[in-house]
C-alpha cells in the first residue's frame, strides 16, 4: 500500500482538496447536497466541486498519461462530465466523490491511451524496442532520461493493449494507490473479483514486458 502522500498525489494536491473540503464543511453540507446544488445550477457549488475533486482527477490522469498533451484539458472535461452523470445516475450515494472521480479519470485516461494506439498517432514514431526496459539508476544522464521516457511509453502502450478491466485494476491499485476494497468499489466488482483481476493483470503486464525485452534483445 503506497503511503498517503503518494495516494493523494502531492502536498499541493492535498492542500487544495483540504481547502475545498473545509469550505464545504464550513457551510455545513455534505457531498450529496453539494451535487444537489450543482443540479440546481448553483455556480458556487460547481466551483466547490471542482476544487474538491480536481486534485484526484489530475493525479490519475497525469500518472497514467505522464506526458502533457494537447488533449489533457479535453480529458479533464470528459472526466467531469462522466463523473456528474455517473454519480447522479446511481441509486446509492458514492462513498467519496474524490475516490469516484479518481476511478473515472483512470478509466478516461486508459480510454485515451487505447484511442491513441488505435489512431497510431502516439506510438508509431516511438522506438519502443526491448532494450529500453532497463531500470534507471544512479546519475540521470541524457541517455538515461531518454531510456526512462521510452520505458514509460512502453508501459503505457502495454497498458493500452491489455484487457481494459485488468489494466484499470492494476493502475487503480498499483499506480494510483487505491486499496483493494476501493478498487473493487470503483470498478463495480466484488473484492474477490478485483483481487483476481489484479493478480492476472500484473502477471499479464509482466509477461508483455518480458516479451518485449526478449524481442528487443534479438
Amino acid at each position, binding site marked *: 500500500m*503506497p503511503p498517503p502522500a*503518494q495516494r493523494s*498525489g*502531492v502536498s*499541493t*494536491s492535498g492542500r*487544495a482538496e483540504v481547502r475545498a473540503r473545509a469550505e464545504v*464543511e464550513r457551510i*455545513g*453540507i*455534505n457531498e450529496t447536497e453539494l*451535487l444537489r446544488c*450543482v*443540479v*440546481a*445550477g448553483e*455556480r458556487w457549488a*460547481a*466551483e466547490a*466541486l*471542482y476544487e474538491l475533486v*480536481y*486534485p484526484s482527477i*489530475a*493525479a490519475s*490522469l*497525469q*500518472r*497514467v498519461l*505522464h506526458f*502533457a498533451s494537447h488533449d*489533457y*484539458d479535453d480529458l*479533464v*472535461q470528459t472526466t*467531469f*462530465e462522466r*463523473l*456528474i*452523470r455517473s454519480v*447522479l*445516475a446511481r*441509486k*446509492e450515494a458514492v462513498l467519496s466523490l474524490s475516490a469516484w472521480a479518481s476511478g473515472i479519470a483512470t478509466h478516461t485516461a486508459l480510454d485515451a491511451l487505447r484511442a491513441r494506439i488505435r489512431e497510431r498517432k502516439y506510438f508509431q514514431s516511438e522506438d519502443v524496442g526491448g532494450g529500453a526496459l532497463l*531500470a*534507471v539508476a544512479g546519475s540521470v544522464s541524457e541517455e538515461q532520461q531518454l531510456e*526512462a521516457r521510452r*520505458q*514509460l511509453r512502453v*508501459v503505457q502502450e502495454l497498458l493500452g493493449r491489455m484487457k481494459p478491466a485488468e489494466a484499470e485494476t*492494476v493502475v487503480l491499485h*498499483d*499506480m494510483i*494507490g487505491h486499496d483493494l476494497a476501493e478498487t473493487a468499489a470503483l470498478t463495480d466488482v466484488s473484492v474477490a473479483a478485483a483481487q483476481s483481476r489484479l*493478480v492476472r493483470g*500484473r*502477471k499479464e*503486464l*509482466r509477461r508483455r*514486458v518480458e516479451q518485449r525485452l526478449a524481442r528487443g534483445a534479438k
Partner: protein
Amino acid sequence: MNDEAKVRELFASSTARPIDLDGRQFRVNRERAISTILGAGEAADRRRSRWRLARVAGGVLAAAAGLALAASAIRTLNSGKPHVAAVDSLLLQDVYGKVERREAGQVLPVVGRDDVISVTTANELITGVASGARLRSRQGLDIQLLENGRLTLAGLGHQPSMSVQLLAGSIRCQVPHLPAGEQFSVVTPNATVIVHGTAFSVLVSGIAEAVRTCVRVSDGRVVVKSPEGERVLGPGMTWGCETVGPPAEAGERLPDDPTLAPSAVPPATGREQTRTPAVKPAGTLDAENQLFQTALAAERVGNLSAAETSLERLLSKYPGSLLSTDARIALARVRRKPQSP
C-alpha cells in the same frame, strides 16, 4: 522478483512524479470545467425529468397489461407459494453496548461495533441501557435502534406492506421513496405509523395499559393510525410526545443515565401536536437535522471529532430540539469510541 514488485518498479517513475496542479505543464481551463459541471448537472436533471414523464406515460399504457399480470401473480401467491421477500438482505452494524439478536427463542451472537452481520426477517433485536445498533437494507431502509429497545423484523418480509414491530424503546428510520402501492409501517402496541419515503423517529414508553407512542417526523409525511383515529403528520410535527421530549433541566444528563431510559419517561397522551414557537423558534428543523445528519455521516467515516463538534453545536444552538435526545445518545456513543491514531 514477484509480479507485484515488478509492476510497482515499472510504475515507479509515474508514482514518484509530483502532480502538476498549477498548470505548468498540464493546463486546464477551470472556467470551462465549471461550465461542464453545471451543464452535466442540468442535462442529468433533464434526463431524470424526461424519465419520470416517460414512466408516467409508460405506466398508463402498461396499466391494462399490468392488471392482467397482477391478477395472475395474486393467483400464484394465493396458491401457497411463499411471499417474495421485500427486503432481501439486512445488515446489522454500528453495534454498541449490549445488543441481543433472537430467533425462535434462541439468543444469537452479536459481534463488535466494527463488524457488519447479516440478519434475517426472523430476527428480533433487543438493546440494553446505553446500547444501540443500526439496521440497513440494500434497498436503502435505514433504522437506528436506540437503547432499551425491542424490534421485531418479521414484517419486513412481506410485500407490498413492509413493517417492523417496535415493542419498546425508540427507533429512528429513514425510508427510501417507495414505489406506488407499497408502504412501510412501524407497528407499536398502541399505534401504527405508515410512511412513504421519509425520515422520522418513534418512541414507545410505558407498559400494558400505560403504553404510549411518540412519533417525530423530520422529513416527508407519515400517517399515524391509533384507536383515537388517523392523523397525517408533516415535517417537524409530532404525535403523542408532549411529555416524552427531554425537559429543559435534562439538558446536561447523558444517555447513560438510566432515568432517561424510555421506560422511565412519563407517559404521554396520544394526540397530535406541533412545535410551539415559545419552546423553539420555527424554521430551524432543517438546520438541526442538517447538523445531526452531518454528525452521523462524520461518525460513519470515522471522523469522530467532527461528529462530536456537530453534535455539540446542535445541542448548544438548539437545546430544545426534537433531535436532542438522539443527539445526546449519539454524542455519548461518539465520546466512548476510541479516537483513531
